């Protein structure tokens, strides 16, 4: 079955066929939802953020460059919305805060078949570790490892100096490595 490319879909939507946007949402909702989830750490808020991201993207579709990939553009919008939500939710968390009591909404993967238990367990540990990070560290891990943004782009997105980006990323990775080590 012929599947239109993202550029073709966007062209048709801009020409007036609003119904084609459903295909865009269905195609990229998983990536957008996971971007939001890794940042906000809550499935319900992640779903709301993903919906808002798609609506904002629709209104800004005329600014999208057709020769660029659509998924990173959508994920960037979702990341920005999630970061704004994190800023509104709480002030900067101290890096020395005790996180042991933090409640993490990690989906239950234990219903997977036996053969996948090891992989599933590793994924649970990874999800737990990333979501345990303080929001400012989670943000920088998301932008660097999942959005693949450069240090300059991260500095602009988070309104930090370049040296602060390096320091914060360094600490986030050390923290993540230590959390994962404890999980093993």
């Amino acid at each position, binding site marked *: 079955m012929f599947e239109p490319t993202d550029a073709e879909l966007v062209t048709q939507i801009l020409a*007036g066929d*609003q*119904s084609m*946007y*459903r295909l865009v*949402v*269905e195609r990229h*909702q*998983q*990536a*957008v*939802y*996971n971007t939001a*989830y*890794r940042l906000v750490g809550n*499935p319900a808020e992640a*779903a709301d953020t*993903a*919906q808002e991201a*798609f*609506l904002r993207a*629709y*209104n800004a579709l005329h600014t999208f460059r057709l020769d660029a990939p659509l998924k990173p553009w959508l994920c960037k919008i979702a990341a920005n919305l999630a970061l704004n939500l994190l800023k509104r939710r709480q002030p900067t968390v101290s890096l020395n805060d005790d996180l042991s009591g933090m409640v993490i909404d990690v*989906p239950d993967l234990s219903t997977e078949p036996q053969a996948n238990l090891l992989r599933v367990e*590793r*994924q649970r540990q*990874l*999800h737990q570790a*990333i979501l345990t990070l303080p929001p400012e560290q989670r943000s920088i*891990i998301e932008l*660097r*490892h*999942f959005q693949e943004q*450069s*240090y300059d782009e991260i500095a602009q997105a988070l309104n930090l100096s370049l040296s602060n980006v*390096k320091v914060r*990323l*360094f600490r986030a*990775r050390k923290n*993540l*490595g230590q959390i*994962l*080590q404890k999980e*093993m």
Partner: protein
Amino acid sequence: MAYISTPSCSGQEETLYLYLDDELPLAERSAFESHLQHCQTCRALLAETEALFAEIANWEELAPPPNIALQVMANMPLPVVAPEPDRYNLLLLAGQMAIGLLLLLVAIPKLLTMYQLLPPKWNTPEITAFIVAGSEQLRVSAALQTNWLYAQWTQITGHIGFNFAPGLAVALAGGLILAWLIGNGLLLGRNSLSIKGSG
């Protein structure tokens, strides 16, 4: 995979991250790669860090809730319908174009008399004669129109006791500018109402 905690060279851990992120300047990158060849501790740390990065990249995406597409489509803004051309606007535009053409006809004699500024190869006797003849025709026509306008102007100003010859040109220019402004102002006003109505 277990993460082995190893002692690292002083100050190299941050450099290691910059190296893996491809953010090291070329000279420093070469120096660090040379260091790696001789330092087992940093090589072990490099392997450990690469494993961590690979683990992060292994994040398996979770399935989103099933109703995201439905919610998005339900909350989409209504499509904007382009307003149909307004006959009144078209008439205004046509009127302004007609005034513009009339002005051109009056101005052409002035423009054509500038043939003397054309390059020498264009200044042949035949072209000159053609331009002179055409220019003369237009000049006569423009003179008739101008004389008629001036006669009307003189009559009007004579009745109101105002006799200022250059005032004709000023009044014409002023009136045309005013007509253009009012015409476009009305066009803009009607268009902004159409946009508000379809929002």
